[in-house]
């Protein structure tokens, strides 16, 4: 391991926000470096003289740092290793911690020597959209040859392959005023609102509060900008009605003033405690949102303006002032405005004399004067034409501009180790725009600012295009006060302090330098996506003139930074070429998120087994203890079968089903939906909901019912019992329980409010156990000796309230298996007790539990329909429920049943299928064809919905839904499953395979 000479690029002053007493070791590309507490990965690398960080997306050009924060398009790294490895992290956003490991990405074999850079040598063949024009021949080569190469070259970092070891959590918050950004206007807004008594949340994306006040030499009241910022923060932190959050970025602004923010909770902590989440997502519903997100500096396009060492002037200043880091020792400052002069002054403080190029003819701003007063000669009317230096900037070709600034008139080669450029500023309007705010173009600053707002959102300060400190503070205090007045009656206004900052002259409308004579270097606009001026020119030349077309054709603004530093320069260039003013060019849409958000943060705790809740019956524990194999039924888990010894699933299922047919079996049916229906109009209501008649159902009786949707499709089925005159107990299928309840509520509340009925889900209130088989009566008689379970005492479809010991129990005589059967309900807490009691009592009768598979076998043999038949695409006539459809009364969906296609002669109907060889099991999902050898498309007569091994006849049996099904009975057709290469000759039979007359249930 090599330890480099460390921190040779630090400033001489120590007014920054790093702690030089705490040294942190970190590794970049295998080399160990040292930085200080308070550094970012970016500042620590720069301090060690490292500017080459990664490679660009398309041309694999060497890239360094452009910015110092979220605007960074270039310096993306692969952070951490192993399962915590994370691609595409802006080095500017990573706070240094001891032992941090980072690597360059999108390069091979190394960032210094990257094979992919061949793309750069050939870049003239890869202009915007080149891939649309080629790679078309031969046809198969696109997918097999060209595309894999392109895919490999593209991408940036590497995705981890294993689950994330870290935790994320969510927080839901409300406040009166949310202030986004803690620069001067944000602090002013928050202070004014908070002191007026509003509940305030102040969110700052960075570790430090203060925004531009951390970098600008200004005075507020009698304090420096920085002092004032920390004073305001401590005031806010002491107020009970304020929450102050750093490392927290509001990235999305959604409807009804819902904003979403992520907080980096422990990324900056070397060893976070066990239960600290890595990040936290905050949903904040704010009464008012104050957008004080500041502005981002714009680069300038010139030849090879992307080399490592070329960065924004404001970034260079922040590296010096906050991180005590020098971006270089031989700087060129290149600007079209006054603000970059403060960077020059900062270099001068460190005894470094920059070369200053200004595209303007002159400026009388105070910063400019101060630089001149220090004896520095400023080269006005100058710009950069080109640069040299492969892995790091070495020199620049600077030039004198002609009077219309379309050409250089003279050139000079100047050595440098960094270029600090400034093309003016772009207000950060993302949140305002996401909120639905229309933007307007503000000519004085050549940028879009928020205009008409649609939500309760107000932009202040630089985000509103107000660039002076006076304006920012005045707007902040005013808006903070006014908006907070909506929530409090204090009417307590905070005075705006006096402030002082150097005066500035206006910028020049020039963001793209002319090409140097006879050369055509790339002048980049979008750094990460490698979009150059020539690409925009090409797009326009080819007729891609809408700004959206330019964006899509060139990919301008579509990289990870989403155009934070490139969009406006792109617009400006389109406006120049198209000879349209910028507002006519328009702008692309600002979409959330403002910066990329970790998916784990968005998802929170609902991962792995917690993806969705798991519902278990109160008898679940018994099933587990008795070797049940479980199956998911929606959110529920149900016993599928209970294998004994070496039994296969088929063995177990056949045994369980046969035991029901022969002796008695019990099945946990707790998961069935249960709905209590009460009220004098309950019978009338059921009569409208169900297709069959309900008015005359006697108390103490159950009835099978089918309900439809209005389009005539079967929605659900189940038995409903009349407990007392005005009280019914409805059961639904497990899958449809929630839908049916909403359906009933809809008709009661919306359609027939005149009906006096109430409905309530009781699914969780009762545990249910089906007791089925010829010996079920004997079993239950043993358990409930006091009640008469004979056909007279409890006839088929009857019910009886009784007690199991002291526990209230209800016994229904209903059957899904087609056997003599009962269902016993008790309150859920007694479910396990009931089950155990039945097992105990049943030992004399050969009782066995059966799972969902045997349950299916039993119902399929009987031709009872269930989920696979009632799939939302079948009407009652399709599934043999004709007898359930009342001709006499109206009900939901009845009118649809007379549709031409529904009453067609050859309409599909339910049938049974038996393989001719009586052996071959017919896979569910097979289709029925007349000729299994016919060429495709082979007409399908129907499909196999459910299959089982008939334990009654000891051969396979299936249910199918077939066109003109009843007429097919007796025919031999083919059940085919081309997916499994299976074709089985089958005989079409009635779907009522066992006990077609239904005698057993009444036995």
């Amino acid at each position, binding site marked *: 391991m090599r330890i480099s000479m460390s921190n040779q690029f630090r400033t001489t002053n120590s007014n920054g926000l790093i702690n030089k007493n705490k040294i942190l070791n970190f590794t970049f590309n295998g080399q160990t470096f040292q930085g200080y507490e308070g550094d970012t990965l970016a500042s620590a690398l720069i301090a060690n003289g490292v500017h080459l960080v990664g490679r660009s997306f398309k041309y694999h050009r060497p890239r360094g740092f452009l910015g110092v924060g979220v605007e960074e398009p270039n310096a993306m790294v692969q952070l951490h290793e192993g399962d915590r490895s994370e691609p595409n992290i802006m080095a500017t956003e990573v706070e240094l911690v001891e032992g941090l490991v980072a690597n360059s990405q999108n390069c091979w074999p190394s960032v210094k020597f990257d094979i992919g850079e061949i793309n750069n040598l050939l870049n003239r063949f890869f202009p915007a959209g080149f891939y649309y024009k080629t790679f078309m021949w031969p046809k198969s080569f696109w997918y097999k040859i060209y595309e894999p190469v392109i895919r490999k070259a593209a991408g940036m970092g590497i995705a981890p392959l294993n689950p994330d070891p870290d935790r994320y959590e969510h927080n*839901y918050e409300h406040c009166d005023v949310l202030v986004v950004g803690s620069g001067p206007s944000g602090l002013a807004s928050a202070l004014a609102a908070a002191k007026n008594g509003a509940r305030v949340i102040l969110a700052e994306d960075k570790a430090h509060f203060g925004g531009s006040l951390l970098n600008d030499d200004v005075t507020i009241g009698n304090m420096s900008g920085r002092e004032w910022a920390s004073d305001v923060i401590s005031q806010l932190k002491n107020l009970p009605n304020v929450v102050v959050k750093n490392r927290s970025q509001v990235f999305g602004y959604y*409807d009804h003033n819902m904003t979403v923010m992520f907080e980096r909770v422990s990324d900056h902590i070397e060893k976070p405690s066990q239960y600290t989440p890595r990040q936290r997502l905050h949903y904040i519903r704010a009464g008012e949102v104050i957008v004080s997100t500041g502005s981002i500096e714009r680069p300038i396009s010139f030849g090879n303006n992307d080399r490592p060492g070329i960065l924004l002037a404001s970034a260079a200043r922040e590296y010096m002032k906050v991180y005590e880091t020098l971006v270089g020792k031989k700087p060129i400052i290149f600007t079209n405005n006054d603000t970059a002069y403060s960077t020059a002054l900062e270099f001068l403080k460190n005894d470094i004399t920059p070369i200053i190029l200004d595209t303007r003819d002159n400026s009388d701003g105070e910063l400019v004067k101060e630089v001149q007063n220090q004896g520095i000669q400023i080269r006005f009317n100058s710009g950069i034409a080109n640069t040299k230096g492969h892995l790091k900037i070495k020199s620049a070709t600077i030039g004198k501009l002609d009077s219309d600034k379309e050409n250089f008139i003279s050139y000079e080669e100047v050595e440098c180790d960094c270029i600090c450029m400034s093309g003016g500023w772009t207000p950060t309007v993302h949140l305002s725009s996401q909120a639905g705010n229309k933007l307007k173009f503000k000519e004085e600053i050549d940028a879009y600012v928020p205009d008409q707002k*649609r939500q309760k959102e107000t932009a202040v300060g630089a985000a509103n295009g107000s660039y002076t400190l006076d304006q920012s503070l005045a707007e902040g205090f005013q808006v903070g006060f006014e908006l907070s007045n909506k929530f409090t009656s204090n009417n307590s206004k905070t005075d705006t302090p006096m402030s002082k900052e150097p005066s500035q002259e206006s910028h020049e409308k020039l963001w793209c330098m002319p090409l140097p004579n006879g050369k055509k270097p790339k002048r980049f606009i979008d750094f990460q996506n490698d979009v150059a001026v020539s690409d925009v020119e090409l797009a326009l030349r080819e007729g891609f003139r809408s700004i959206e077309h330019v964006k899509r054709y060139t990919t301008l603004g579509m990289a990870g930074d989403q155009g934070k530093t490139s969009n406006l320069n792109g617009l400006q260039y389109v406006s120049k070429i198209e000879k349209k003013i910028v507002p006519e060019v328009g702008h692309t849409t600002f979409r959330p998120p403002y910066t990329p958000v970790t998916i784990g943060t968005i998802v929170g705790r609902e991962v792995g087994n917690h993806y969705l809740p798991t519902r278990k019956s109160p008898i679940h524990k018994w099933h587990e203890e008795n070797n049940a194999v479980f199956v998911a039924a929606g959110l529920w888990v149900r016993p599928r079968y209970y294998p004994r010894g070496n039994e296969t699933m088929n063995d177990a299922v056949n045994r369980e089903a046969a035991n029901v047919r022969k002796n008695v079996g019990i099945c946990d049916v707790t998961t069935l939906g249960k709905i209590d229906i009460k009220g004098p109009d309950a019978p009338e209501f059921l009569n409208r909901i169900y297709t069959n008649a309900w008015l005359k159902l006697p108390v103490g009786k159950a009835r099978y019912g089918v309900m439809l949707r209005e389009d005539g499709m079967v929605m659900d089925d189940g038995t409903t019992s009349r407990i007392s005159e005005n009280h019914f107990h409805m059961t639904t299928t497990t899958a449809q329980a929630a839908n049916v309840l909403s359906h009933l509520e809809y008709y009661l509340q919306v359609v027939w409010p005149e009906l006096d009925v109430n409905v309530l889900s009781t699914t969780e209130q009762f545990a249910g156990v089906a007791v089925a088989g010829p010996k079920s009566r004997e079993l239950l008689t043993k358990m409930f000796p006091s009640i008469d379970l004979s056909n007279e005492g409890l006839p088929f479809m009857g019910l009886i309230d009784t007690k199991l010991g002291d526990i209230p129990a209800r016994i229904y005589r209903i059957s899904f298996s087609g056997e003599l059967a009962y269902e016993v309900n008790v309150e859920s807490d007694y479910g396990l007790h009931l089950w155990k009691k039945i097992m105990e009592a049943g030992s004399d009768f050969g009782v066995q539990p059966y799972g969902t598979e045997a349950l299916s076998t039993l119902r399929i043999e009987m031709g009872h329909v269930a989920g696979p038949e009632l799939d939302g695409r079948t009407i009652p006539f399709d599934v043999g429920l004709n007898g359930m459809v009342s001709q006499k009364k*109206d009900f939901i969906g009845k009118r649809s049943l007379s549709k031409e296609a529904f009453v067609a002669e050859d309409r599909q109907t339910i049938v049974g299928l038996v393989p001719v060889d009586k052996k071959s099991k017919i896979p569910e999902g097979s289709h029925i064809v007349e000729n299994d050898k016919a060429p495709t498309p082979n007409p399908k007569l129907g499909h196999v919905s459910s299959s089982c091994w008939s334990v009654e006849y000891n051969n396979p049996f299936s249910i199918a839904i077939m066109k003109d099904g009843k007429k097919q009975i007796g025919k031999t057709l083919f059940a085919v499953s081309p997916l499994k290469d299976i074709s089985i000759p089958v005989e079409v039979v009635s779907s009522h395979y066992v006990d077609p007359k239904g005698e057993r249930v009444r036995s």
Partner: protein
Amino acid sequence: MLEIRCPYCGKRSQNEFSYGGDGNIKRPTLGEEINTKDWDDFVYFRDNPRGKHTELWHHTSGCRQWFKASRDTATHEIFATCKMNEDFNE
């Protein structure tokens, strides 16, 4: 995330509610003759306006009441909500 005022419970976030579609649809009276066109119109055809839309919501994870909302389908602004037996007070 929308913020919806349940007429029974007050303002709640959208994730407590389920959507119920066009609130202007009147179910044909049960038992009355209706021609096919009108019936199909009820089952399948929708006004689908861009702008103000009367619609139903169900406070599924709350009081379980259905109610009406007047909402702009272009901006998602909710002008008013009311109980089923009320009219919007806009």
